[in-house]
């Protein structure tokens, strides 16, 4: 069968680079689905995307859909024939409706009844009738941001300028928002011209002549090779940031990489500021030496060839030098200020309307941090470091550098504090207070940094929740979720000897001494606990621990978070462990009954049978080693100790009726069970778990 090459190209005003990768993916998927739904067979689908166009080439498309042979079922045979055995009106009508005559009827059985059928032949539609509906594919593309233009109604990524739609050599008729398909494409905005594509197959070659490398991989590889060549020629080391490479690839149709230079004096400015200027503002690749130190060079990628590249290079150098001059200005100006003067400015900066100024916040954080340091038993030198780090934790927020490069908060604090001769541990903590900055970020390594980080975050979370700023849905302007995750991670990783509840009480007690108007701190406390429980569940889920297990290990509060997670993963594993089934059932039975019990001493004298004595004896033997293992956080071993009670528990329930009429005896038996429950409580409330062991 004859096949065709099909080309669709949509030309646009420059699309945002960050959307191109996803747009190309959608284009590929949606075109494939469209062809599939249209029952059009083809050999290969190619997609292209540049800032000014997206395109698909469909190779070896069949000229028409496959024909269909279809059997159409009519009425039952008994209805299809009249009393004389002639075809009834129903049968004749059916055949007519299908464009057939009674001569075409065949009889077949379905579910034990005879029906009449006619065979129908549906000729496959021609591809050229279907191809114009590619418009639906174009209009089905989703973009994160759409716009309107002129007097048009359509919302699209950018205004559509031209449409090429070719079936081999002939134009496929199509129209979108007043733009009519043709065979004319446009080349590079400056190096190319408007040119006709004679045959869909020529697409790539025509565009290349027009200085457009339409294939993303090819364009990206050109940039990679050009950077490599510059590295070799100049002795540079250029760490290629994948995201930046992708963005740069999508900013050009015809890439030419070149290097430029900036004044060496700027290297005195912290590297982070230089890199932010280069990468984020200018989309340049920073250049390093073999020893990884930064060199006063950058690599940029021009959209065009290398003609007059010196002019382009000079222009780019001029821009970067001006930007860096600004950074130097900020850096120098900032250093003229004392930390105390900066701190003073915080008094005029509102942190949150109801929570006071940044100075108020710092005061709270300082008090909280000191209490935590004391509670964790830090030595006096460390307590001093915590106090100082908290005191100056926000001074860099009023520096010009942070004002200009907000992502450098903390980074600049550390550097400026060091220049002012602050204690090294304090300097490090100033940066670490913001860690983890995102889900994959490192945690603060120093204890001083951890304490300031947790204090700052807890202050924000408790404060915001206290004044009614609990995050809802996608609304979380103060990033409370991210910050609470940070706290959970820090407490878990470093195994703080402080329960979450003690930490929360400590923060709330500091809040209670402030003048912030809060109706009822008990309610706040409950809200914060629920909020953190949700974070813990989220983190647990990530580790395949289900919510019921989380509920079991937190029935008594979150406690110490590393213990919580250890217990949770142990119980999650035991949930399906067949070997644990008997013990689990015994303990759950004990706990269900023990919920009705009072916690009081067991009196052996009230025992009436051996099973009671035996259980009590074993309990006494198991108790001390169990508690020791719990203290040492050897939860699996502790659980093993408990399992030694299993035979005695079974015996006990076989031989002993707990709920007897004699209250003394009954309560003593319940007390015995309660003693066991108290041990199990150290691991969690087993009655809350949906056990899934099978035999």
């Amino acid at each position, binding site marked *: 069968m004859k096949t065709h090459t099909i080309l669709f190209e949509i030309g646009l*005003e*420059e*699309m*945002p*680079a*960050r959307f191109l990768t996803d747009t190309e993916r959608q284009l590929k998927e949606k075109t494939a689905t469209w062809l599939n739904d249209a029952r059009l067979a083809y050999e290969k689908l190619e997609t292209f995307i540049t*800032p000014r166009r997206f395109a698909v080439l469909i190779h070896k498309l069949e000229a028409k859909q496959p024909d269909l042979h279809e059997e159409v079922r009519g009425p039952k045979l008994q209805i299809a024939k009249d009393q004389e055995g002639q075809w009834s009106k129903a049968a004749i009508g059916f055949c007519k409706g299908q464009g057939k005559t009674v001569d075409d009827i065949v009889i077949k059985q379905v579910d034990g009844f005879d029906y009449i059928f006619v065979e129908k032949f549906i000729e496959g539609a021609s591809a050229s009738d279907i191809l114009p509906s590619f418009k639906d594919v174009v209009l089905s593309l989703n973009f994160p*941001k759409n*716009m*309107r*233009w*002129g*007097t*048009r109604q359509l919302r699209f990524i*950018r*205004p559509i*300028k031209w449409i090429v739609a070719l079936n081999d050599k002939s134009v496929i008729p199509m129209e979108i928002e007043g733009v009519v398909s043709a065979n004319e494409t446009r080349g590079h*905005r*400056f*190096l190319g011209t408007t040119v006709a594509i004679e045959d869909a197959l020529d697409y790539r070659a025509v565009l290349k002549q027009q200085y457009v490398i339409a294939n993303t991989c090819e364009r990206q590889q050109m940039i990679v090779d050009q950077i490599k060549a510059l590295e070799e020629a100049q002795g540079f080391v250029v760490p290629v940031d994948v995201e930046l490479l992708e963005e740069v690839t999508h*900013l*050009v149709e015809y890439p030419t990489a070149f290097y430029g230079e900036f004044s060496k004096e700027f290297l005195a400015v912290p590297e982070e500021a230089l890199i932010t200027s280069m990468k984020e503002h*200018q989309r340049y690749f920073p250049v390093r030496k073999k020893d990884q130190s930064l060199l006063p060079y950058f690599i*940029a990628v*021009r*959209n*065009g060839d290398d*003609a*007059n590249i010196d*002019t*382009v290079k*000079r*222009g*780019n150098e*001029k*821009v*970067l030098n*001006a930007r860096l*001059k*600004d950074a130097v*200005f900020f850096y120098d100006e900032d250093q003229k200020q004392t930390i105390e003067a900066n701190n003073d*400015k915080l008094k*005029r*900066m*509102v*942190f*949150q*309307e109801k929570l006071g*100024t*940044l100075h108020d916040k710092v005061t709270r954080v300082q008090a909280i941090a000191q209490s935590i340091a004391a509670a964790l038993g830090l030595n006096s030198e460390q307590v001093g470091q915590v106090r100082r780090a908290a005191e100056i934790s926000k001074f860099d927020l*009023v520096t010009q550098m942070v004002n200009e490069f907000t992502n450098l908060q903390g980074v600049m604090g550390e550097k400026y504090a060091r220049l002012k001769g602050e204690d090294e541990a304090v300097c490090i903590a100033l940066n670490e207070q913001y860690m983890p900055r995102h889900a994959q970020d490192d945690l603060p390594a120093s204890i001083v940094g951890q304490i300031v980080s947790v204090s700052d975050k807890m202050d924000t979370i408790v404060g915001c929740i206290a004044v009614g700023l609990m995050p809802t849905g996608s609304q979380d302007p103060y990033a409370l979720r991210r910050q609470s995750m940070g706290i959970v991670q820090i407490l878990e990783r470093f195994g703080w000897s402080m329960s979450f509840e003690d930490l929360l009480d400590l923060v709330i007690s500091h809040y209670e001494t402030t003048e912030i108007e809060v109706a009822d701190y008990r309610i706040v406390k409950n809200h914060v606990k629920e909020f953190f429980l949700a974070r813990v569940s989220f983190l647990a889920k990530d580790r395949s621990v289900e919510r019921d297990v989380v509920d079991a290990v937190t029935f008594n509060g979150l406690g110490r978070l590393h213990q919580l997670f250890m217990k949770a993963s142990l119980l999650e594993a035991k949930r399906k462990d067949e070997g644990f089934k008997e013990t689990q059932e015994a303990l759950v039975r004990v706990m269900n009954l023990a919920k009705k019990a009072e916690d009081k001493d067991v009196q052996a004298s009230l025992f009436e049978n051996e099973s009671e004595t035996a259980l009590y004896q074993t309990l006494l033997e198991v108790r001390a080693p169990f508690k020791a293992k719990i203290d040492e956080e050897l939860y699996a071993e502790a659980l093993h100790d408990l399992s030694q009670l299993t035979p005695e528990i079974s015996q006990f329930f076989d031989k002993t009726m707990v709920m007897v009429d004699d209250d003394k005896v009954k309560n003593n038996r319940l007390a015995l069970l309660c003693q066991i429950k108290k041990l199990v409580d150290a691991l969690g409330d087993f009655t809350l778990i949906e056990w899934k062991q099978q035999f």
Partner: protein
Amino acid sequence: MHIQDMILTLQKHWSDQGCILMQAYDTEKGAGTMSPMTLLRSLGPEPWNVAYVEPSRRPADGRYGDNPNRLYQHHQFQVIMKPSPDNIQELYLSSLEKLGINPLEHDIRFVEDNWENPTLGAAGLGWEVWLDGMEITQFTYFQQIGGLEAKPVAVEITYGMERLASYIQDKENVFDLTWTEGVTVRDIFYQPEFEHSTYTFEASDTDLLFNLFNQYEQEAKRAMEKSLVFPAYDYVLKCSHTFNLLDARGVISVTERTGYIGRVRNLAREISKLYVEKREVLGFPMLKDGGVS
């Protein structure tokens, strides 16, 4: 090419495209967009094509005349075309050629930049235009103004005149640019730059400014109650500039900003709505032959 000649060239170019040549608006503002010639006239169905030079004040950018690139007050050349013509990018690029910038000798790019002015409830999609890595123009299709949907869509082109001139004249320092033969930017603007910077960062009376903000806001509301769109809008501009002075002085925190911006935005929204209503009562006089709505 002197700045003055650049202005003349751009005026001629855009006049030839059918733009009305206007003069700068006489109230302090942070950007040419804030002139009622842009902000209000971009609203509603009436066609509107205009070009003008707008001196724009950015108190926070004041550098006492020391910085080679930053200015308390710079100049924007502003073009508005409503509805946006299909060939607007080409019209823009040909204006650059008239300024002597041959695209084949440079790297000219349209880099995504979605413009937003929360104080005016305005937002648009478009680009910053890069000339060899330098942003020389803001190119925006308005999507929303004063909280109202822009229909038809106006396109706004804002040339940063000093930026562009420093490239065209190949000067490192903005103060070395020539305005016309024998007269530099330094001659005209150094003293005001120094004095405005001193005022902004050291001498302004912040209590007075906070009071002014409140009073301007009150006056804007009062004018609104009397249905006086343009006077009310003038006071909104004054609110905005006063806010910028306070912000530059560092006495407004991130959180407070939201509150102040919200206050100005609410006014701008009401004024925008009222402007369209009043134009409608007048029968949208600039809408000829049924127009383009």
